């Protein structure tokens, strides 16, 4: 399978005054081209941090301590971390764009929506006229099902949470990049609009072959719209595979816990239970497997050995758990 980007042994640390917090810990994964890949995992497990390495803009005082982030352009491969700031500015939005978590936060509060579109367009097309920009802006606002008359000249505070999220999605599509990172893009959307937006994204994904990396907590959204899913815990990759394989087989005990604790209308309320225990303390990581203190399958080796990612026999399915030795399926 072809890939669009590859994380190679990426380590990211937030270097604080009195300690270092390792938010992404030796993460390696290839993201398939032309597909929708979901990234799920605990709150604070490092999803946003990992995604921001793709644009080399980890928030301060974060640092990419080691690793490579490879971008597979049509005929060339390069390490995104090697781009100088000028190249990087061209790269952002046109090759990889990102809908930031808390879209509210990403919009400039003192500019109208149109002014913000115009500004972004000008960076990449210097000679664009206001009329041209206006037409493009309207086209994209309509695409995400916004009433452009209302939104076009509005300031962000005049829009609801979900309207701002859709403005950001429109933004990310503007320059037709090869990869779009969507960080919690639909938290403020009702399921009807969400369905509309995801069907639209899916169409764009299929027709324009734009790859997508979707960071979300919404497991049912992953099940409905994504092709592949990566599960993170404590800064590490725990499981990766096609949605079908991961959801039907749920090899990693953490993945299993995550899917089974998801409330749904047809589940008995009393049967829904959170995974016991607390998220790992990133400053004081458990030894061995990071998940072992909360794992109901943990055995004597788990607090000692940090498992390797192994490839299961069914091809493209990776699991990091001592229960699996890889090759064939020997639980």
């Amino acid at each position, binding site marked *: 399978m072809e890939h669009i980007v590859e994380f190679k042994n990426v380590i990211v640390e937030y270097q604080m005054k009195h300690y270092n917090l390792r938010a992404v810990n030796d993460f390696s994964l290839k993201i398939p081209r032309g597909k929708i890949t979901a990234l799920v995992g605990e709150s604070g497990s490092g999803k946003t941090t990992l995604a921001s390495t793709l644009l080399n803009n980890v928030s301060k005082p974060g640092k990419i301590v080691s690793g490579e982030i490879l971008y597979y352009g049509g005929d060339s491969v390069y390490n995104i971390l090697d781009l100088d700031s000028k190249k990087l500015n061209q790269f952002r939005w046109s090759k990889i764009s990102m809908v930031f978590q808390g879209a509210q936060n990403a919009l400039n509060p003192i500019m109208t929506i149109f002014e913000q579109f115009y500004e972004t367009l000008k960076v990449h097309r210097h000679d664009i006229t206001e009329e041209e920009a206006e037409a493009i802006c309207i086209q994209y606002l309509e695409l995400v099902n916004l009433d452009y008359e209302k939104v076009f000249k*509005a300031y962000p505070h005049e829009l609801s949470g979900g309207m701002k999220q859709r403005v950001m999605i429109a933004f990310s599509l503007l320059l037709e990049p090869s990869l779009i990172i969507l960080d919690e893009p639909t938290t*403020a959307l009702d399921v009807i609009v969400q369905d509309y937006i995801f069907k639209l994204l899916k169409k764009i994904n299929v027709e324009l072959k734009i790859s997508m990396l979707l960071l979300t907590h919404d497991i049912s959204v992953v099940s*409905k719209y994504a092709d592949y899913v990566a599960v993170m815990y404590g800064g590490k990759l725990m499981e990766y595979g096609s949605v*079908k394989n991961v959801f039907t087989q749920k090899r990693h005990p953490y993945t299993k816990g995550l899917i089974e604790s*998801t409330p749904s209308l047809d589940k008995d309320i009393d049967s829904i239970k959170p*995974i016991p225990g607390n*998220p790992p303390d990133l400053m004081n990581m458990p030894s061995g497997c990071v998940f072992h203190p909360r794992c109901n399958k943990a055995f004597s080796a788990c607090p000692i050995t940090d498992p390797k990612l192994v490839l299961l026999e069914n091809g493209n399915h990776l699991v990091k758990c001592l229960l699996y030795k890889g090759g064939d399926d020997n639980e």
Partner: protein
Amino acid sequence: MNELIRLENIYMNFEKSGKILEKEKVVQVLQDVNLTINEGEITVFVGESGCGKTTLGKIVVGLLKPSKGNVYFKGQNINKTLSSKKEYKSSVQFVQQDSYAALNPVRTIYQSLFAPIKNQRREMPKGEIDNKINEYLELVGLKPAEQFLNKFPHQLSGGQRQRVCLARAVSLDPKLIVADEPVSMIDVSLRISILDIMKRLNTELGISFIYITHDLATANYFANGGKMCVMYLGEIVEDGTVQDIISNPRHPYTRALISAIPIIDPDVDQLSKEIPLKTMEIGNLIDRHIGCSFYSRCLYSKEKCLNPVEYVLVGNTKVLCCNLEGVNDEK
């Protein structure tokens, strides 16, 4: 049950300078909303993105003053009796949808939590406040609390921020918490834990909650036994118990909404499923027509739906629909 807050004939309009439309326009965001919140009760607001849930929530806690209509606190009109206004202000807390904007970016988490408690309880010694802060941070799963106290908001993940906001609201001993999408950026396992905490606050301390969400499954989990208001274009279109509405939705909008909820099953082709709506075109808040606001999108609309609509009582559920026979016939 004792009445805590009652809203009577609430209207909310925003002025909009219509640069494109060339004339001043009024955006009519809420239309004749009536609502009673009782002590110890949980109420869920669901509805379309942009339909006015946040606006209504802000009116309930007094952050916005309605253009028309009255707000009563324990039976007293808050704008007529000063003493009741004071008690009201200290009894209600709002957890903002946008956790990024809710926290002052130049203050540490500790400072953001300390100031409001000090403000409310001037006589409380610092040590006691510190203990309280630790206790509430750990209550919402931010453990160990010391790891978060000296951080700034931008140094937290999305879900961590949301929990700080919740901790702050709880720390002020309110009688009612309006929680606007408080767990949308938190993983499902932790979501359940936080909702369990909110449930405990409700049953043990008798705190009332308004839970604003797009996630009907968590609404059902958290508020089972409580009330639900389904909103569409600034009106409450269905008002009943959570159980009744989820198991037997009456209003055509509620039906469409529930049918659009994604399920966790990669084997089911959910993408080709159509949502029962005539169009995705959203209604217009600027030129409202008389009659049903769902008219243009409703599969069951008839000519009579263009006349003013009245609530009908079906069992214990109030439904704003004038063609329920039509809806039921085609069921």
